[in-house]
Structure formats: C-alpha cells, structure tokens
C-alpha cells in the first residue's frame, strides 16, 4: 500500500507523542506526583497509531486500562489527559476518572476502561447504533490478549458478526495478562484463529510495524464502512514496562525483554524515515524537541491546575439529581 508522505510522518509524530507522554508519566509516577497507578503503553505505540490513522473524527473507539496511546491517537488533548492523570479539576473527567477512565465523547472516545474485556460489548453497542442510524462511521475496539478469555469477547464478536456491525476488533497481544503469559492463559498462538468461530476475517500482523497495522485495519475499516461486518485483527506486540508501574516483572526474562527492545517500533520507524529520505536526523531531532515541549506544557498545565472542589464529588452521578454533601 502506498501511503503519502504526510500520512507517514503524521503516524511517526503520533507514535513519538505517545512515547514521550508515557515516558513522562513513568517519571512522574516514580517521583510520586501521580496518585494511584498507571499502565503504560510503551512499546505498543505502533498499534494505536496504525489503527487510528484510518479513522475520522466522528468514528469511535473503545479503549482499555492501558489506554493513553489510544486516546492520543484518536486526537485526545495532552493537557486534559495529563491533568486527569494528576486528578485535577481541569482534567478530561474533572479528576473523577484518572488514568483508567479517560473519555472524550466529542472525539468518539467512548472511554478507557478498568474492567478487562468491558469495551467489547460497548463497541458492539456503538456498532449497532451506527448501523441503526445508517451512517458510515466505524468503531475500533482495542483490547488485550487476556481479555479474549472473557465472555464479553465471545458475546460481542458473535453479536457483531450476526448483525454485520461495523466494528474492527483490534487485539493488542502483548504476550501477558498481567503476570500470566499467553501460553499459560490460552491454548492458541494466534488469537486471530478465533475469528473462525464467528465466520469473520481474522488476521495476525506484526504489531510493532505501524504499516502492517495500518494496512490490516484499513482493509477492515473499508469492509465495515461497506456494511460487510466486523474483522478481528491481532497485533503481536510487547509492553516494555510491567503491567503497572512498580510491577517487578518477575514473570519474564531480561532476554525476552531485550529481544523485543530490538524490535522497538520507534527506532524502526525512524530507520525507515531516514532510509527513505522522508526525514533527516535534524528533522527527527526537531520532532523530539517539539513533542518534548508539548509534554512539558501538559505537565505544567496539570501542575498549575487546582484540585477538584470537594462539592464536585456529588455532581455528575446523574444528569439531574445532586446528592447531599457531607
């Protein structure tokens, strides 16, 4: 597939944005500036980037607990994201959601999700809505390998298949469900094999190759827009960090991590850009500088924002009922 230069560079920029955002989140967490816990997308940047590069603003995504990369790729605002991760009133969710619950309805981001597998059924519902409203929108449902053992995976793929819903199921197979390796949590190597059970196309691609992801999702999005139903795409990738920051990762070896660091999608993309003379080193350095600046500005925005007003705790439970305060 021939992609234009602008598209390719746009994807690179997006991957770098995720990388830098997540590295900053990692450092801030280590410094104790971020409450709770964070699940970082480091190493998986090519999946969200390649997938969302096929979407329009009015298309939808559902995300996961490891959602920062999806939000960035669907056009999420870095300031609002960072402020939310800090728990500030200026954050995407006014400080009520945090890292695991960022959503932006206007950009079609139907929410990151703290329950493994919960996005599948919500994506099917959004697909139903699109079909019912007769628009040509699509939904991308992001999920991890471990979530394919949840009942929701089966329910959503089955429903999407029988109703030809415009949903692209993008599995980020990073090899682990928390501490349990794929070999220990399911008896198959390729999750795309499960597509057979729903009589839908299933493909497995190198999830660290942004072009491979883009192309597979492009095909699936086309099918979906042409009312031909859902597709299951498995992107094999790896998370560079543990399940959460602070995870001692005793369940995997340094050799395995190093093998995957060799396949890091970002240097790989940079090598491609240099080799094909799309960017020179100076321009790449320029992107680093520019994105570092955006991330610093987001941190500054978050740090300078106020904590939520205590009375806001009882708002937004309902559209029209405000409970009493303490």
């Amino acid at each position, binding site marked *: 597939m021939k992609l234009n230069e602008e598209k390719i560079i746009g994807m690179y920029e997006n991957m770098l944005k995720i990388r830098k955002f997540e590295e900053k989140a990692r450092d801030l967490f280590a410094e104790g500036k971020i409450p709770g816990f964070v699940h970082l997308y480091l190493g998986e940047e090519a999946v969200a980037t390649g997938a969302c590069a096929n979407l329009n603003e009015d298309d939808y995504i559902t995300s996961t607990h490891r959602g920062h990369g999806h939000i960035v790729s669907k056009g999420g605002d870095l300031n609002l994201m960072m402020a939310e991760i800090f728990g500030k009133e200026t954050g995407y*969710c006014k400080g009520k959601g945090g890292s695991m619950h960022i959503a932006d309805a206007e950009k079609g981001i139907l929410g990151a999700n703290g329950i493994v597998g919960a996005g599948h059924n919500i994506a099917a519902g959004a697909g139903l809505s699109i079909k019912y409203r007769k628009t040509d929108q699509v939904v991308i449902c992001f999920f991890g390998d471990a979530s394919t053992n949840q009942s*929701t995976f089966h329910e959503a793929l089955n429903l999407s298949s029988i109703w030809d819903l415009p949903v692209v199921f993008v599995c980020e197979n990073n090899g682990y469900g928390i501490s349990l390796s794929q070999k220990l949590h399911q008896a198959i190597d390729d999750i795309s094999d499960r597509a057979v059970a729903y009589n839908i196309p299933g493909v497995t691609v190198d999830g660290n190759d942004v072009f491979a992801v883009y192309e597979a999702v492009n095909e699936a999005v086309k099918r979906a827009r042409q009312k031909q139903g859902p597709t299951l795409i498995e992107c094999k990738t790896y998370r560079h960090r543990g399940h959460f920051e602070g995870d001692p990762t005793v369940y995997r070896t340094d050799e395995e991590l190093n093998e995957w660091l060799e396949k890091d999608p970002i240097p790989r993309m940079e090598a491609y850009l240099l080799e094909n003379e799309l960017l020179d080193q100076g321009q790449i350095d320029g992107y680093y500088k520019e994105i570092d600046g955006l991330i610093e500005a987001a941190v500054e925005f978050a740090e300078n924002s106020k904590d939520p007003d205590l009375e806001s705790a009882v708002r937004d439970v309902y559209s029209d009922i405000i409970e009493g305060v303490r």
Partner: protein
Amino acid sequence: MRTMTYGEGIREGMRIKMLEDDSVLIFGEDVGQFGGCFGVTAGMFEEFSGDRVKDTPISEGVIIGAAVGAAATGLKPIAELMFIDFLTVGMDQLVNQAAKMRYMFGGKISLPMVVRLPGGAGVRAAAQHSQSLESWLTSVPGLKVVYPSNAHDAAGMMLTAINDDNPVMYLEHKAIYGVEGEVPDTIEPIPFGKAKVKREGTDVTILTYGKQVYDSLAAAEKLSAKGIDVEVIDLRSLYPLDLDAIEKSLIKTNKVVLVTEETKRGSYIGEIAATIAENFFYELDAPILRVGSLDTPIPFSPVLEDYVVTSEEDIVNAVKKLF
C-alpha cells in the same frame, strides 16, 4: 379512560415513544416475533420492524453492554432481560459501565437507556426465575430504579424512563402482567420520585411497591374490619425516593410497616427504614416493622413458595403487632 393490563401498559409506554422518536429501539431475548417471554412486546415486531424490535442471542452481557454503547452514541435503547435473575450475567456492564460512565467521565457522557427487568415470585418458577433483586440496583449510585404496579403507572413511567438521560432500571412483577387497570386516553409521563397514596388511612402507613401493593390493599381491607385504618402508599419510584410523601403520611399515622417481596435480609426497605429512623423518628410512636420474604432461595413446590414469599397474611400479622 380505557382498560388495559399491566403488561399492555408497559407496551403502550414503549409504543408511544417509539412512534414519536426514531432513536428508541428495543432489544432482548425473544422480544421480536415471539413477542417476549411474557408477551409484553407482542405485535411490536410487526408494527415497528425487526430493526427496532430486535432479537438478540442469549447473551445478557452484550444486551446490557450494547445498550450502553448505543446510548452513548445517540440512541435510546430499551434492553429487556427476560428475567431479572439473569442480571448476574450482565452485572458488570450495568454496575461498572452503565452506572459509572457519566461520573467517571466527568459528566460528559449521557446514557439514556432503559433496562426492563421482570422479577418476582408466584409463578412456580423456582430459585433462578423468581427473585426480587431491587436492592442490588438501589445500592448503586448512577442508576434510577422504578417499579410500577399498574397499567397507568407502567405506561406513564415508561415514558419518563425513556425520556431520562440516565440508566433507568424498570422493574416489572411477572405475576401481575394480566392485572387490568384504568388508563387515561392520553398518557402523560409520570415523574420519578413521586409516590402515590393508594388508600387513605389514619392509623398506620404501609409503604410498598409492585405486586405487594395489591396484597397490602387486601390486607388493609381485612384490617379495616378489625377497626385499623391503614394508609397504603405505592412508592412506584425506589430511587429517587419520595421522602416528602413518607413524612406527610407518618405525621398523620405515626406508625409504619414496610412491605417487600425481597428476602428481608438486605432488602431495600431496610434502607428506607433506616432513613425513616434518621429523619422521622420523632413522628413515630411504634417500632418500624419490615415484612419481606423468608431468607431463602425461592423454592419450587407451590406450598413452599407460598410459605416463603411475602403474603397478605404476613402483612396483616405485622400490622396487628402495632395495635
């Protein structure tokens, strides 16, 4: 005025909204050509087409989850679970998703969805098809919970439920689908949080809802013969709850008996009892009493089921204790 059954009232509420708003659709198990397990959606498939009255696979998780996704993206779905007992299968989608999305996302996503939940005992359906589970729902911030008892309320509260921007749990008692009632020619939305005095009385207040409204009214007649003048209030809306109506009645009667079909232990009326104790204790001149089913699963044997489930006799006996 016209007469229709409770089940027809539910259907009429859905029909009215579906005729005026294309974004309303129904889905669930066997709701289409089959007309619903209890016949509530009978004729709607033919009237509105299979696109708007959709049969789903037996997948309660995705029935509720798809309602969440559809509601978040511009539709007003009515999801039917065939029996409230099957809610266990879809509970994550309801409690962790539907109830919390508005809040977690800072008020930026609305979920105008209705989940129809037929519950209750009395049809010899045993332990997994007979439960009353309203307290599972009333304890979850983010859900509204209503339980109409008659055709008019069923229709009017369905209009309000569909108009609501929040997830509304619309509970139905399966043993009273055939009970007829008067319904006005023009059905207006009945606001949530408004109880209804079904029988005025001066000696004691019975607070109840659903099928137990009928049992309580029958009990009140028996008690009347013994000189006890009972006021019966149909709460109709469990959350929001009409505390004003409760207060007004207690000021008059100074005694209260709460009646539910839930197992007494952990039932929602316990929460109401606590709220009364906190707020209206000085209006009372007797202990707050609760009448509920025995703390067991619902047994199959008709004699056992009738023994376990809240009955008119239980209500009569409870009220007598106060006099």
